[in-house]
């Protein structure tokens, strides 16, 4: 801190999340310290400056000492980040030393669209509900839509461990301490801690701090993807809690809320984060897998709705009561980029097998409706119902761990078990090549 830094001691207004005071020469978005607490300039009205205090304003007196730091929030980036855990401000929370490196402002500029490359590299996860039906591609951004009682963090952690990437960055927002420790132990036990950088805001920390987490995580991601040409996977959980923090702040700044009491800028705010996903021509990439928790499966709520318009698909988790497992719902899930890889980077029968499975699964759901409405089932109805059960158990369930070829073979085995060739209705030449004659 420079010796000439001016100290202000007269706060004119305090609300739950903000303080205002008169000051000059202050820049927008700049950081300040109020009695040691970090705050950020969110409004400059003549000489009156409004600061958003990340940790809340409890106990701040009107004569608190305020100093402006002359810079926006930053992160020091270097390879020393690897294997470390940080809070929302980028300070270590694992007891280790401060990280040394180049200081970069977080929330930096966007990639020029003409400097992007069309994503084309498959990311295999071993989970058939993803690899077979909703294949992930590097440079993609995709959230899990899940109700709070579903094991989304476990699924995401599993995906992260299996995915072939150079670097994993975890951005945890409103994680319970238990989940934080879960991630920590999991990464430690898997012996891949040095591939991972984590920024964590737990429920024990003030909610407004969360707003910094995605930008911190993505600034680190850009360091590895741009400077080091690495394939980086960013995990953001839970974006619903991030959006909730946005609404808290906008509410305290007297902004007029739009749908579902979210700020009118929600779309832009979320897009700024998700659009950091990118494939660079140099080989580096940033892939974002996020979690958006739903309430009661409602995807028309402003948070999942805006997310759906931004992300390249969504992975929908659902409990299949028939097999008692959580599955990746083949109807409501979608990977918009899968066309870029399936049948091209994977075996030629992939697109056809995927579609046939889903069509038969859909027939099963019609048969189930018939059953529930008390109509008679045909022989075909009964066969698709049995197929659906096996399909759900052997492929859709999230505990599946297979190579893509094994998934395709499993599907062919199920086809042959329950159907004849015309019912499966796949292009003849592919049928001839892959059809399994069981007996």
């Amino acid at each position: 801190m420079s010796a000439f830094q001016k100290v202000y001691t007269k706060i004119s207004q305090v609300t739950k999340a903000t303080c205002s005071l008169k000051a000059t020469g202050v820049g927008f978005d700049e950081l300040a310290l109020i009695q040691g607490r970090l705050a950020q300039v969110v409004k400059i009205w003549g000489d009156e400056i409004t600061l958003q205090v990340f940790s809340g304003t409890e106990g701040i007196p009107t004569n608190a000492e305020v100093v402006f730091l002359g810079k926006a929030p930053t992160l020091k980036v270097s390879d020393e980040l690897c294997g470390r855990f940080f809070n929302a401000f980028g300070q270590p929370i694992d007891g280790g030393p401060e990280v040394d490196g180049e200081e970069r402002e977080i929330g930096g500029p966007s990639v020029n669209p003409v400097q992007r490359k069309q994503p084309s590299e498959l990311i295999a996860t071993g989970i058939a509900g993803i690899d077979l039906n909703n294949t992930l591609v590097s440079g993609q951004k995709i959230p899990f839509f899940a109700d709070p009682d579903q094991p989304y963090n476990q699924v995401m952690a599993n995906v992260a461990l299996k995915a072939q990437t150079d670097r994993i960055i975890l951005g945890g927002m409103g994680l319970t301490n238990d989940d934080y420790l879960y991630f920590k132990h999991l990464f430690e036990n898997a012996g891949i801690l040095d591939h991972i950088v984590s920024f964590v805001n737990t429920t024990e920390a003030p909610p407004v701090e969360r707003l910094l987490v995605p930008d911190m995580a993505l600034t680190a991601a850009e360091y590895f993807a741009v400077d080091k040409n690495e394939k980086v996977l960013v995990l953001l959980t839970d974006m619903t809690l991030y959006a909730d923090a946005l609404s808290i702040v906008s509410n305290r700044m007297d902004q007029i809320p739009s749908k579902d009491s979210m700020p009118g800028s929600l779309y832009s705010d979320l897009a700024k984060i998700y659009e950091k996903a990118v494939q660079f021509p140099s080989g580096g990439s940033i892939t974002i897998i996020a979690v958006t928790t739903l309430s009661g499966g409602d995807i028309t709520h402003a948070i999942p709705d805006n997310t759906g318009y931004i992300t390249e698909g969504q992975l929908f988790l659902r409990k299949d009561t028939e097999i008692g497992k959580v599955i990746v719902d083949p109807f409501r899930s979608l990977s918009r980029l899968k066309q870029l890889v399936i049948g091209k980077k994977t075996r030629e029968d992939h697109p056809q097998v995927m579609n046939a499975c889903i069509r038969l699964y859909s027939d099963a759901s019609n048969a189930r409706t018939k059953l529930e409405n008390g109509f008679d089932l045909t022989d075909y109805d009964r066969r698709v119902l049995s197929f659906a059960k096996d399909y759900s158990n052997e492929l859709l369930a999230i505990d599946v761990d297979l190579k893509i070829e094994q998934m395709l073979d499993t599907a062919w085995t199920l086809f042959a078990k329950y159907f004849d060739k015309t019912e499966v209705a796949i292009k003849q030449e592919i049928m001839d090549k892959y059809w399994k004659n069981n007996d």
Partner: protein
Amino acid sequence: MDKTVGKVVSIVSNLVQVRIEGPVFQNEICYIFLDEEKLMAEVIKIIGDIAYVQVFENTRGLRPGSKVEFEGHMLEVELGPGLLSKNFDGLQNDLDKMEGVFLKRGCYTPALEDDKKWSFTPLAKTGDKVRAGDWLGNVKENWLDHKIMVPFKFEGDYIVEKVADAGEYTILDTIAVLKDNKGNSHNVTMRQHWPVKVAIRAYKDKPRPFTLMETGVRVIDTMNPILEGGTGFIPGPFGTGKTVLQHALAKNANADIIIMAACGERANEVVEIFSEFPYLEDPRTGRTLYERTTIIANTSNMPVAAREASVYTAMTIAEYYRSMGMKVFLLADSTSRWAQALREMSNRLEELPGQDAFPMDLSAIISGFYARAGIVYLNNGMTGSVTFIGTVSPAGGNLKEPVTESTKKAARCFYALSQNRADSKRYPAIDTLESYSKYLEYPEFVEFSKEKIDDNWVELVNEARDILVRGKETQEQINILGDDSVPVDYHITLWKSELVDFIILQQDAFDKVDAATPMDRQRYMLRKIIGVTRAEFNFENFEEVSPYFKRLINAFKQMNYSVYNSEDYKKYEKEADEILGERVVNA
């Protein structure tokens, strides 16, 4: 004239108050000086000596007291040869000229090339009386005839004093000298500027649209046609195929020029256009699609205020080419993002909000924009047109939200994408019964269709629509009563409607042949299918109906996949006819 200057007083995100020391006007462009950077901004409100400006950039680090210079003009675009095959941002900066991987704040690049030579041929001659928009000469831009016009800003009549000889010129060279009625001479170059929020009106007359704009998409051309100079919009929840449909339209539409405004949407979708269009063949010219395309990319992570500018920039470029007598097709994806940008600003201005916190004048702004499309008679009697289709992303898939409602008032065609159709993979997922084209009722179009398509065209289209309505009603009754509790006729009615759905409405955008259907072929198929639906069928029980029609649909579908009038096509037609022979009474 000296520029008005001012100083920054207040900052809330990208809304900045400036204390001004001279005159400014509404929508005037200014630059805010922040250290070495210049941030572009636009005046949106003036109270006393305070001008409210919206900054087209991130305002991080901006301090009160920063110097502001007002430019004396509104947000303008550069017009001239060299606009095609370009990737611009919302403010018409050429993205390919920018350095570095990341967009740098305050970095503005020129839209056109000052040093490139164009081969000019004069069209006007000395002594001609001309006015704004009249053609002075012609240059080849890719393969298109790019007209060099009397600048739109010229008011009144002029006499041509001199036109340059045929030869190679840059956009800065004088290619004509015009004399106004006071006797003053004005030099004209191939480049001109025009404010994006003002419509270009250099035409004689704007009639009601009357000719079909062929898109190759059957559910549009046949069922809900859009006309040259017409307007339409596509609302749909996410995942229903808005973007795929827009790309299909861009690829196949029978237009001279395609302008795509990616307004606040995904960057990877723009990358898809960048990487595919240079290699896609324009089916009518054999050249690449890129040669007739301009892309305005203001993706969702680019500054919000420039999002609003992007649709106006795109429209102005479209109007510019229309003035050359071209058929321009303008696509904007998505206008909801533009409306949201308006909302963010209105909110910061602390205006009283309308529904869902959108500004009160949203409806007027949208209508004003759609009104700029249209077919026009130019001063020389030629026609030019801007056909506009915008997508709308309704929040929560609810079509009662303000942007959809406002757009419905402004656009003449409504293409409702349905989640149900998308879920059951019936693409394009346009719900024909929910959708409409007001042009079907235009006497001008009825006349046109009689002459150019079919004597009874509109009747046939309405008949197809009725079959779909009846099919839907029957489906509901069967669902309630059960398959075996309704007469066999119900099943036949349902399957006739399915036949129309599968063969006319559904289309495979990824199949080489089926992706685009010429009008002649659409006419043939509609006649054929309507013929089938008029026939009487003989079935013993309902269980025979669905397998029979599935076979029939399959044969017709193979026809759709075959090259028109090819051997395969005829083979499948014969197959379909044979299937019909099995069951049709009195065939």
